[in-house]
């Protein structure tokens, strides 16, 4: 074997370019990376920072449309970039393995899970196929997959997302590689599932003393997994340090700003003036009932956060309020009146007073209309504004969302993610609503941009007394913006109350599971949580 002091992976001065819009753009601009055997390095950065590209570069792989222009990737003494692809391929899947973001898409639908798990080991003739199968079953077992002896006989579409992600970890582990690249492996999962997958991955990496690169945009997740953290931005390294010191004392301004995001917290206040109330609402898509007698109250000028995992019915509740999905039972009260269930029975004034902002600002704006068209339409439609008056109001609205008039003739494609969401907020404001329904409005944004949007929403609430029904799955966002919290699970409301009440124990069982699953920025959080849960199970 090689000298113990020599790093397993040494990447120096990596430059990668990508081809788009008929020319080459730099993606990675001279990054160095070093990894010792058994070490776990976290790479963190916002979208477009080049994390995934760097992760794949560690295998000497560039996606189609990308190319290396400079640098070395020395893995265990050989520069991968000087090898022929057929030689590099011998290392892939055997000594360096990859765990992709979306397990559902990364498994071949035509083959059984176990055949895909042992594919690399079998190809490299590491051991007889029978042994590999037995080994795969053992891996499934140590990853806490249900029915490990038989789950491999299934096809990818027959198991859940969280299970697939663990099978993919088993697949990476099957040839006992020296290095695994985890590329945002838990991003697509619900929090309660994420905890299980994280725990399983960490355990197995520890057990086999495998080196790993863990790529994510979520600080608290990387804190659980990594020994060291490298912060990446615009294809360049910002800084790198040991996890604990990075969390407690970041050096660079950019890193500090990333860290400080989670500190925003609105002081709660209560009110008995209810602007919007859902009373015993049942709703169904076709024959499947999604909401079972839910009650939600939204006080005037306050924010009620509706939290729950995918499938909990929180977005369906919003569709009932907007009238897109008329309820089958119950009533919606708005400003003391019964709101007609169906959109087409509501008066223009009722429509004006309830506005909606969406998760994907991209699809919420017509790509062929300018910012001016987008914001001006509600002014014309609801307020009959024309000419000077309309222009005046447009500028006021832009000022409210902290943009200037130079944006008026831009198309959505010419705006950044945060700016797009601001335009959507301006469009909602233009109607002068009482209630704005915010459906995961910050989930698609980078953390720093999220912070800006949340602050803007809070300021607008103070100035105009707007009430928000704020739908989200992210507890940090809930803490930041809400006065009251509604917890939903499987189409039912688990509880509603003031933020402080809901967030302090004792909790109902589901709230407890949900809250405890949210990762914290503490490297010991996962260990502590697992011990606590084991302890409870042992009792």
């Amino acid at each position, binding site marked *: 074997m090689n000298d113990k002091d020599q790093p397993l992976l040494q990447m120096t001065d990596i430059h990668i370019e990508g081809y788009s819009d008929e020319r080459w753009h730099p993606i990675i601009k001279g990054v160095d990376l070093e990894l010792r055997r058994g070490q776990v390095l976290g790479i963190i950065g916002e979208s477009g920072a080049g994390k995934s590209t760097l992760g794949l570069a560690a*295998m000497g792989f560039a996606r189609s449309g990308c190319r290396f222009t400079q640098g070395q990737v020395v893995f265990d003494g050989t520069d991968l970039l000087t090898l022929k692809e057929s030689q590099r391929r011998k290392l892939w899947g055997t000594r360096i393995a*990859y765990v992709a973001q979306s397990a559902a898409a*990364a498994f071949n*639908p035509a083959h059984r899970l176990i055949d895909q798990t042992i594919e690399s080991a079998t*190809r490299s003739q590491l051991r007889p196929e029978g042994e590999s199968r037995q080994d795969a079953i053992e891996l499934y077992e140590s990853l806490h997959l249900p029915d490990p002896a038989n789950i491999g006989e299934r096809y990818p579409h027959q198991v859940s997302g969280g299970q697939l992600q663990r099978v993919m970890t088993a697949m990476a582990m099957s040839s006992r590689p020296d290095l695994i690249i985890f590329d945002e492996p838990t991003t697509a999962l619900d929090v309660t599932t994420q905890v299980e997958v994280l725990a399983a991955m960490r355990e197995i990496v520890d057990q086999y003393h495998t080196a790993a690169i863990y790529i994510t945009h979520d600080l608290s997740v990387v804190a659980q997994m990594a020994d060291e953290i490298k912060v990446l931005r615009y294809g360049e390294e910002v800084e790198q340090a040991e996890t604990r010191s990075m969390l407690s004392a970041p050096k660079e301004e950019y890193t500090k700003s990333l860290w400080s995001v989670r500190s925003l917290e609105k002081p709660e206040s209560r009110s008995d003036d209810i602007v919007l109330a859902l009373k015993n609402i049942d709703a169904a898509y076709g024959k499947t009932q999604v909401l079972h007698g839910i009650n939600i109250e939204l006080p005037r000028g306050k924010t009620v956060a509706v939290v729950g995992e995918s499938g909990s019915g929180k977005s369906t509740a919003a569709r009932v309020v907007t009238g897109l999905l008329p309820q089958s039972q119950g009533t919606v009260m708005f400003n003391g009146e019964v709101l007609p269930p169906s959109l087409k029975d509501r008066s223009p004034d009722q429509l004006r007073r309830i506005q909606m902002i969406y998760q994907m600002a991209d699809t919420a704006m017509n790509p062929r209309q300018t910012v001016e068209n987008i914001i001006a339409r509600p002014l014309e439609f609801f307020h009959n504004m024309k000419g000077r008056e309309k222009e005046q109001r447009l500028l006021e609205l832009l000022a409210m969302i902290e943009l200037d008039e130079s944006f008026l003739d831009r198309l959505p494609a010419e705006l950044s993610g945060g700016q797009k969401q601001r335009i959507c907020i301006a469009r909602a404001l233009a109607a002068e609503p009482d209630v704005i329904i915010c459906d995961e409005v910050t989930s698609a944004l980078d953390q720093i941009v999220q912070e800006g949007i949340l602050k803007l929403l809070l300021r607008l609430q103070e100035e105009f007394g707007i009430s928000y029904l704020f739908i989200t799955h992210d507890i940090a966002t809930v803490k930041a913006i809400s006065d009251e919290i509604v917890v939903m699970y499987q189409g039912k409301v688990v509880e509603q109350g003031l933020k402080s009440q809901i967030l302090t124990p004792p909790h109902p069982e589901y709230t407890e599971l949900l809250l405890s699953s949210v990762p914290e920025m503490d490297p010991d959080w996962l260990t502590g949580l697992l011990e606590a849960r084991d302890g409870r199970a042992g009792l």
Partner: protein
Amino acid sequence: MHPVLVTIVKRLLLGVVTLFVVSAIIFSSISLLPGDFGEAVLGQAATEDTVAAFRKELGLDKPAPARYLDWVKSVAKGDLGTSFSGRSASGQDRSRSVAEMIAPRLKNTLFLASVTALIAVPLALFLGLTAALYRNSWYDRSVNVTTLTTISMPEFFVAYVLILIFASLWKVFPSLATVDIDMAMGERLNRIALPAITLTLVIVAHMMRMTRAAIINLLASPYIEMARLKGASRSEVILKHALPNAWAPIATVIAFNLAYLVVGVVVVEVVFVYPGIGQLMVDSVSSRDIPVVQACALIFAGTYILLNLIADVIGIVTNPRLLHPR
């Protein structure tokens, strides 16, 4: 019952229903005929009696649904009715049965189509696969431009260019594809060489482009990238990871193009005066021999529906989600 069987049975039933609706549409076209067509068929000198007798024979005195039922019953028995031609004003009837007219020609057409398919399908799949594998290479680009040009040409242009070169200037093949039943196989093949080449050129261009598109679409899937990152070689990626998922799109491509062959055959048969069903149909359209037109249309549409049905069934039985339900 296994869900795959359920899906297949549903698809088969849909095919049968479609065939019935299509037959009803083709049948009801006769009701759209102008009132005086009896005279048109029998000639100006036809007496009222002969016209009335003719209308009665067609069943025009009965209501349409009843006529349709009768027609379906006789079609099921292989009786496709009687041709309009050979009738005269005097009421003399030398007309032939449609089935009798069609049978030998259908055999000829099927022969031409099968020969073409045997050459075209493997060739197109090979070209499409290789173009997808080496996409954006000079090979891919030149195949792309050539096929785009070929599919833009009318079939008769391709046909006449071939005649000009291989029959007129350089007498390799006969320009007229006349065949009869007693002809030996070798001679037959020689006679149909030019029509078969014409059809092959057109079909290969279409099929190759669609195969290439289907494969490229498949190669963009994340699981293909994953297979590469697991160290699979190029051939392994194609054979083990792409192909098992490619049967459905490839079957669709083949069925679509064989169906296209059905239509292309009409024009090509006319160019080469080949005694097939396409030529018969065109002649009957010109002479407004409705029963023959209906029978030919029914055969063409039936083939078309059958081919699409087969492609769908292949798609169903190769879909792992249906084969291995949750």
